[in-house]
């Protein structure tokens, strides 16, 4: 918004001489018409945001410092949790819990494998769909369907597909020639692969759409010039497209990273975090500890650790999203 302030209502609202247009009380309160209007507009959103941040944050901090949970302490309500004050033993437990760090590590692993895969496949698909060909619109629509499927339903689809008596094994049997019975969802490694496959299947279309929109916006003159000068496809890609696509690529990766980090639905429907916690991600870990084992204070401590982690990551990662919007 660095345009010169020819805009009297917007940019100069705060600098309008006091008492010129509004009543005295209003100007004393600093409430010019425009500022009051702006406050009214953003007020509800701001209030809702605080409603969902302030109280939860305070409660989480409070509970995390005690050993209270709804099932312990004979019906003590949460505001009396100070009776179970234990000076942050939960944090010691979180930091020394192998389970928790394994879940964190696994989440990063799933994100770290799935997101680059989605990126590469999406980029390939974007090149496929760059030029016109008959039937392009229909194929384009079909290819986008996975990202519109309800994630829980997508999880269930992959649950069916990866059954030991399901179609994947049947197809493999047909190829190999003998009966294949791979236990996809009960083997620790394969179950993680199945989850990655589900995530890649569902979210590659988003990558594809973002990258395609970037490629379509590419200036054609330069491409043509490079072709005439005899540049190979690889050279064009490396020295022309990649630098120009960079902002779009960063946005695509950041968005996917953000969302993949929270992965829950597909895991719950496919493996429920099993076998023996081998597919537990951060969200599933917190679900199990908080709502199956009902250890609220411990979960609260884990949630705060994640909050700090995410705040640090987000302030770096979200910058590229912030800037294009601001520069319009």
């Amino acid at each position, binding site marked *: 918004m660095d345009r010169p302030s020819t805009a009297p209502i*917007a940019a100069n609202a705060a600098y309008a001489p006091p008492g010129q247009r509004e009543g005295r009380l209003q100007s004393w309160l600093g409430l010019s018409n425009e500022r009051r209007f702006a406050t009214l507009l953003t007020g509800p959103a701001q209030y809702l945001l605080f409603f969902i941040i302030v*109280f939860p944050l*305070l409660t989480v901090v409070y509970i995390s410092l005690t050993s209270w949970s709804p099932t312990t302490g004979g019906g003590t309500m949460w*505001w009396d949790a100070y009776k179970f004050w234990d000076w942050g033993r939960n944090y010691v437990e979180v930091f020394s819990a192998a389970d928790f760090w394994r879940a964190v590590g696994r989440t990063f692993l799933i994100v770290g494998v799935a997101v680059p895969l989605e990126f590469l496949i999406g980029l390939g698909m974007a090149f496929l769909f760059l030029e016109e060909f008959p039937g392009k619109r229909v194929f384009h629509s079909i290819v*986008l369907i996975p990202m*519109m499927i309800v994630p829980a339903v997508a999880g269930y689809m992959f649950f069916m*597909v990866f059954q030991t008596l399901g179609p994947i094994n049947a197809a493999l049997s047909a190829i190999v020639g003998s009966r294949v019975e791979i236990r996809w969802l009960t083997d620790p490694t394969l179950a993680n692969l199945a989850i990655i496959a589900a995530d890649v299947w569902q979210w590659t279309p988003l990558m594809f759409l973002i990258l395609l929109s970037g490629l379509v916006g590419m200036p054609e003159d330069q491409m043509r010039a490079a072709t005439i000068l005899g540049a190979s496809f690889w050279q064009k890609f490396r020295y022309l497209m990649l630098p120009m696509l960079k902002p779009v690529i960063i946005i695509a990766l950041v968005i996917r990273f953000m969302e993949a980090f929270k992965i829950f639905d597909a895991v719950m429907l496919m493996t429920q975090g099993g076998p023996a916690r081998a597919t537990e991600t951060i969200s599933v870990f917190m*679900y199990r500890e*908080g709502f199956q084992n009902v250890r609220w204070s411990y979960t609260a401590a884990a949630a705060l650790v994640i909050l700090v982690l995410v705040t640090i990551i987000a302030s770096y990662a979200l910058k590229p999203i912030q800037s294009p*919007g601001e520069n319009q």
Partner: protein
Amino acid sequence: MNQTRLWQWVVRYVLVVLVTLVSLFPTYWMVSMSFKPKIEWTTASGTVYWVPRNPTLENYENILTEYRGKVFRAAQTSGIPAMRSSLIVAIGGTLLALVVGTLAAYGISRYHRSSGDFPWYMALGRLILMVLILLPITLAWSLLGLISHWYGILSLTIVGFFVDGLVGRFLGLIYRKGPVGNLAFSILQLRMFPPIAIMIPVMIMWSSFRLVDTSYGLILIYGIVTFPFVVWLMKSFFDEVPRELDEAAIVDGSSTWGAFFKVVLPLVKGGLASTALFVFILNWSDFLVALLLTNRDWPTIPVYLNKLVTADTGQQYGPKAALGVIAAIPPVVFGIMIQRYLVRGLTFGAIKK
């Protein structure tokens, strides 16, 4: 030359068809499963049924009717209540998010100037300072016996609202690059946080408001969870409307509200409609929140799908697939309708094509 082009053409088509098949297969499998009689559900009989051999509507009948001894399911109800609650809750949440988000988006688009470009220790410092200041207040509230009531929680939130403003200004004095804290940016940051992490306090709040397992409760939380998308999407639409238009309307004697409702809003009608559909898809798709905040009265489709238990017969692939098909239809239809805006929505308006 001609031959290489032919080759290119063939390779492209083969790849496109391959990609299409892969992206279609799991969906196809679920749809075909929903029409298969029980014997065809698995390969246990020795053959794999790529297409249903004896297509039947039994699975849909199972899911749409009351328990009649065929399938043992959650609470032995049909899937209809789950569909009804999904529909009501998703529409309600969408409306709430739209109203709140559109107003905020217009405010941010026209009046906000801070960039939100500050280092992580400022963001963290803001949170920590806020907690340090508010914890004693919380304690005071609980000593006064306010905290166990809904008005205690509401008033505490209002206090927090002002404290945060002060903290932002105070940190701004130290940081010297304008106030630390930016609504649009905080909204975005919130999106990154796994929702399960705040579900414990949300459950506490919702139970003190008596909102657990009600439609209002779900509508409220869905509105809160999805209004960030509305803010970012609608901001990107409002940014495209030149400011000079609202200014002209105001110069012509219209009020600020009038300029918003009569001049700007009609111009972004299309954007508003696609935002609504987009947010509806998000709300319809939620699983986690509904899983924790509902139990008997208002389970949504994904929760019901997860609960649909099997007793004597093992996995009920058919009925569950039928339910999955029903759940998948609205978002796919709406999604194809708003294809053009999907990217914009999911990238928070950062990419506009």
